[in-house]
Structure formats: C-alpha cells, structure tokens
C-alpha cells in the first residue's frame, strides 16, 4: 500500500509542478503517466529490456509526448488548455485500445514472466520482493520530491511562480513565458512518466484504464486535497484519499459518496488544501 501511495504521490508531485507552481490546470496528465507505463512495459514485454533501460524509455516517452503536446496546447490558456490536454489524453487512451494487438487494450498485459530483476552492485533485486517494491517506490518518490524542492527554490522556479501569478507582467519583464511553461510541462511529464514507469515495474501490469480520464482527474484531486503549490501537499492528498477510500469501503458500499463529501468539505472549509491551510494558519515555514 505504501509503495503505491508513494508512486501515485510522485505522479501528483509531477502534476503539482504544472498546477501548483505554474498555474496551468491540465486534465490530460494520464497521458504522461500512461506513456511512462507503456514505454517501460512494452520495452520489457517485447524486447526484454532490463528494468533501468526500460525505466529510461518510459520517462523519455513521456517527455517526448509532452514536447509535442506542449508545442500545441501551450498556445491556449485556462479552460482551453484544460480541454486541449484532455483531448490529447483521450486520443492516447483510444490509441491504446485501437492498437490492441500490441497493447492488449483494456485487458492490458502482465510483466511477471518477462521482467528481469534489477541488478545493482552485483546483486539482483526482484520486484516481486515487497522490500524492493517499497525501496524502489521510495527512491523514485524521494528523487521527485527533491527535484521539486530544488526547482521551486531555483531562479527557474521563481519565474514559474511569476508566470502563475501574472503571466503578462512576467512577459513584460522580458521572459519568454512560453518556453518556461514548456519547460514546466516537460519536467511535470518527466516526473509523471517516472512514476508511471516505476508503477509498471513494481506492480508488473500495464493496461489502458491507466490512460483513461479518471487517471487525469485523480492527480488533480490529490493535489487540491493536499494543497496545490505546496511541496508535501501531493503526498498528503494521495495518502488521505487512498485511506479514505480504503476505510470508507469497509463501512459502506457507497464509499464514493464519502469521498465526494470529503471533497465538498475541503472546498468549503479548506480551499487551499490541507498543507496550504496549515501553511497559511499554523506553520508559515512549510515549503
């Protein structure tokens, strides 16, 4: 469970780079998460790639797709950006169904038989081992978190925040905001792709449902719940949502109603999300 939460939190961290720090709300991030999954999964399944190169293929697939999508979608803003990104993600989702002879479509495929252990320092680490699962997820999550902290405190991060706060004024100051937004999208997609690629290695399954609209909505909810524009918000949001679903499903079959009620309560009383609320009211030093 913790391994899954950390990987999905890494996905949300990637999303937060775009929404929280750059102010671009995407509804198509499943495209990048799933591109990471398929890049890694297909290279293992068909060509027998070892884990590390397969991971690199997954991340590269996400970043390349982000470059293509960003070149078009970043010419729009606001609701238009939301819709264009959603359309790209849906096109990718439908492509995974259309090319089902390769992707196995909705049913997906299992990697257990093809996936070689990770070889480090002359030792083999099988992804079926729960300790390896945990550590792989933890390393990826930690790297994504450190990268985000570094980014937000760097001059580039400050320019991204400036774009979020007032793009026109930032442009007036001489910054090419298109390039910075594209950079943010590439970093965001790279992190989301790394999360998807690692998810594939750890859970040994790839399927087109991970490219569906639902998986574009999830990181939005997790980020808003935890606090957009906060470093730890995505982790808090992902963990909270996972455990709310887990606990509520034991108490009632209408557990999605509980999730909905929690989100309504969040919007009414904590519009800045859990960590955003804490930062504004209790701990102003929170990153």
């Amino acid at each position, binding site marked *: *469970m*913790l391994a*899954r939460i950390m990987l999905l939190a890494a996905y949300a961290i990637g999303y937060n780079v775009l929404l929280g720090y750059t102010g671009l709300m995407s509804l198509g991030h499943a495209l990048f998460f799933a591109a990471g999954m398929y890049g890694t999964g297909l290279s293992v399944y068909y060509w027998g790639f070892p884990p590390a190169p397969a991971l690199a293929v997954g991340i590269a697939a996400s970043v390349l797709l982000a470059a293509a999508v960003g070149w078009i979608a970043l010419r729009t803003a606001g609701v238009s950006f939301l819709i264009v990104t959603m359309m790209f993600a849906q096109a990718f989702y*439908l492509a995974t*169904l259309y090319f*089902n002879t390769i992707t*196995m*479509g*909705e*049913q*997906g*495929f*299992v*990697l*257990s*038989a093809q996936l070689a252990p990770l070889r480090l320092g002359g030792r083999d680490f099988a992804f*079926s081992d*729960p*300790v390896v699962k*945990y*550590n792989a997820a*933890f390393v990826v999550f*930690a790297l994504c*978190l*450190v990268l985000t*902290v*570094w980014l937000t*405190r*760097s001059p580039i991060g400050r320019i991204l925040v400036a774009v979020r706060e007032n793009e026109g004024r930032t442009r007036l100051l001489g910054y090419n905001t298109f390039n910075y937004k594209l950079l943010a999208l590439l970093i965001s997609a790279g992190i989301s792709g790394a999360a998807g690629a690692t998810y594939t290695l750890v*859970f*040994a*399954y790839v*399927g*087109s*449902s*991970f490219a569906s609209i*639902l998986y574009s909505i999830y990181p939005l909810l997790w980020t808003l719940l935890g606090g957009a524009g906060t470093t730890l918000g995505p982790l808090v949001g992902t963990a909270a949502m996972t*455990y709310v*679903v*887990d*606990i509520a*499903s*034991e108490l009632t*079959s209408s*557990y*999605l109603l509980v999730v909905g009620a929690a989100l309504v309560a969040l919007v009414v009383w904590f519009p800045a999300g859990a960590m955003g609320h804490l930062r504004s009211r209790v701990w102003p030093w929170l990153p």
Partner: protein
Amino acid sequence: MSRREAIKAAAALVGAGVAGRVAGAVPLASTPRAAAQPATAGARKALRVGFQVHRTGIGAVYGRWYERTATAAANLINEMGGIAGRPVQLVAEDDGTDPKRGVEVVEKLAVHHKVDFIFGTLFSHVVIASAPRAGELKIPYFAVSEGYHVPSGKLNRYCFQPGITDVRSQVTAVAPWIVNTLGKKVTMIFPDYAFGYDHRDFLGRAVARLRGTIRALLPIPPAETSFTKYFARVPADTEVLYHVMVGPGVLTFVKQLGEHFGARKPNLFGFIDSLEGVDFASPGLEFLDGTYFWEAFPRYAGGYPTPYERFYRERVGVNDAGASVQDPGDVATYSHMFGCWETLFVIKQAVEQSGYRDPTPRDYRALIETLESFQWFNEGIQHPQGPKKFVGQIHQSFGQQFISKVENRRLKVVHRTRIEDSLYQPEADYTRQPL
C-alpha cells in the same frame, strides 16, 4: 536551493524511509473487524474467504448478483456444517471494476483481513491486473471470469478458474452449431478488450476450421454509447451477425441493433452477456424474437430441468423468469453467477481433501496440488450447471453449453453441447511452476 539544503532534504527523506521500514511502521487503514475473531472453545475458527466484488463501476450489475449468489452458497455450506467443520466467512471488498483498485483489494484481503483465499473477480482487466499480486503474495486466487487468461498460462500457479468455463471452450463448443445451422459468412461485433479478443480469436479459428468465413470484425470500445455507426459497417452478404457486448450500454446496443436492421436482419447469434441483467420484455427488444443466444445456464426455469437447478434457483432467490423473487424487475446475471456458487464448493472440496488448516506455505501447497489433481466435478447441488471436467494443468473447468432461441420474449433452449465439444489442447502447464 543550496547544496547543504539539498543534502539535508535527502537525508531527511532517507531517514524517514529507513525508519519506516526498521520500525515496521507501515500504517494500516483500519483495524480488521471481522478478522478479530479468536477461536474459542467449542467454536472453530472461521475459514475466511476474500470476495473481490464489482459493487461499483461497469461490472456493478454482475457484482450485485455475484454477491447474492456467493452469500447463498456460503449460507448453504454453513448449514451443511461448514468446510472441514469450520464456518465460512465471506469478506467482501469492492474493487470498483478497476484494475488499480483490484490490486489494492487483493493486498487488503490478504494482508489486512488475512483471508485464506480470494475469489469472485469477473472482469478480465481486473483479473489480469490482480493476479500477479496474488501470485506474489502466494495466496490462491479463484477467478469467476470466463476469460481465457487463466487457461492461457499467462497468470500464475496460484490462479484457478474451476467454477465457470472459459470463452475459448464456449466458442469452440457452439461454433459448429452456428456455422451448420445459421450460415457460414459471419460478422463479429465484440467489446474492444480481453473478453472480446477471446471471442474474436477463437471463433475466427473455429469458423475457419468449419470452412466458414469471418466477413468483418467490429470491435467496440467499452465506454461507447452509440452503436449505429458500427452496424453500418456490417457487410451486406453477412449471413450471421455474432454479437457480444458487456457493460452499461448493452440495452442501447441491442435496441439500436434492432432499429438499424429491422426485419431485414441477418441471422443473429448473441452471447447472453449482451443482455445479462436485462429483461427480454423491455421495449425495443421485440425484434429479437427468432434470434439465438448462447447461455452457460438457462435463465428461464425449465431450460435445464434438474432438481439441482431448481434448488439453486430457490436458494439464490431467482424466480422462473430469471429475476429476483423480491423484485421481478431486477433481472439476474444468471448465466454467469453460478460460477461463484460452484467455486465456493470447489474450495470446500479442496480444503477438505487436502487437509488445509492455515494460510501457511505448506497448507497452500497441499491445497494447490490437490486442486490440480481434480479431474471431474459431478453434477449435484454443488454443481447445478452440470458436470465439469477439470484440467489441472491449466487450472480450468470445462462444461456443457446451451443455445437458446428467443420465442415470445423468452429464451427457450434448443441445443445443449457436450463437454467434449468444448475441449481444446492446453497451451500451458501451471504445475511446472514452483510454489
């Protein structure tokens, strides 16, 4: 961010992660409720069977009836004295018909609820996503799915499908009747995922063997809501339109099928999946009169008149028209849900013959090897759908199939295949995999 700050952040993260592992501080979602029942003197510890059920999502109609059937079977088993003298306790968790949640449910049932076995999953993508985790956790996982994924050998030695036949065997059994009775030029409409691909691949091969031709293949995405555009692509010389559809759009699919073809329709042969949980008397389905359906278990009473079928129908609470006794508008998924009933009785048989007591590697090994040694399940109240041949090599059962004709808005059985008609050469051997 300075180098010092970066090192501090990394150290804090590593520390948190290591501490989490060292202290075993992996938080659980909640305290297991049903699991906390210690064995007391005079009362034997319950055998806990995890039930991965589609209560929500596109499989919700099936999930509702799967749960009723499993509950009825568990109640009957408990009335009969339980399994090896132990009461059966079902621990149900909704997987939302979602592969990600499916894996979480498998973990939760195994690690948190500490069930002895897991069973009940229907939709192929959920089964395929969940099975590797069950294999890693080394817990027997019983699918009630019909997909070809278990017998194909793509899963692992912990996965079984003893309570329901698979698509390949169903298609293999009915193909000769379709080609010889309805026509040799076949166009197929099927859902665009695993279950549909099994139909596409195995019916295609069977029709070719019988010297028929597949005129066109029309896969339909699972979230599709409008189907007329696909019907327009059916070749004019099609003699048989073979259709299978699942999910919330089935009624729309069938209604639009009638609106498009009207009286000039080709011979229609459908898998009952297209109308599982749907009343044949629904407006717009009049055109189905005279068409044919595959059924694994006849929905209408009298289709397979045995005392076991009657007993099963009454215990689950299904009336003669295949709907709930309490609510005649609530039509059952009768052709599939018997798989839950029969699977629980297979678990009972395997536990009692293997001497399984606790979820230990030794007891699981004994249970799995016992299961793999089974060859037949005799017809009876445990197996009301009919006798079954079990092939331990591929962990799959084979049974009889039914072909029914729609007459006066009801299904009437016109043909019953033999078990031998559904057999095929196994392509895998799970028994060679280590446990």
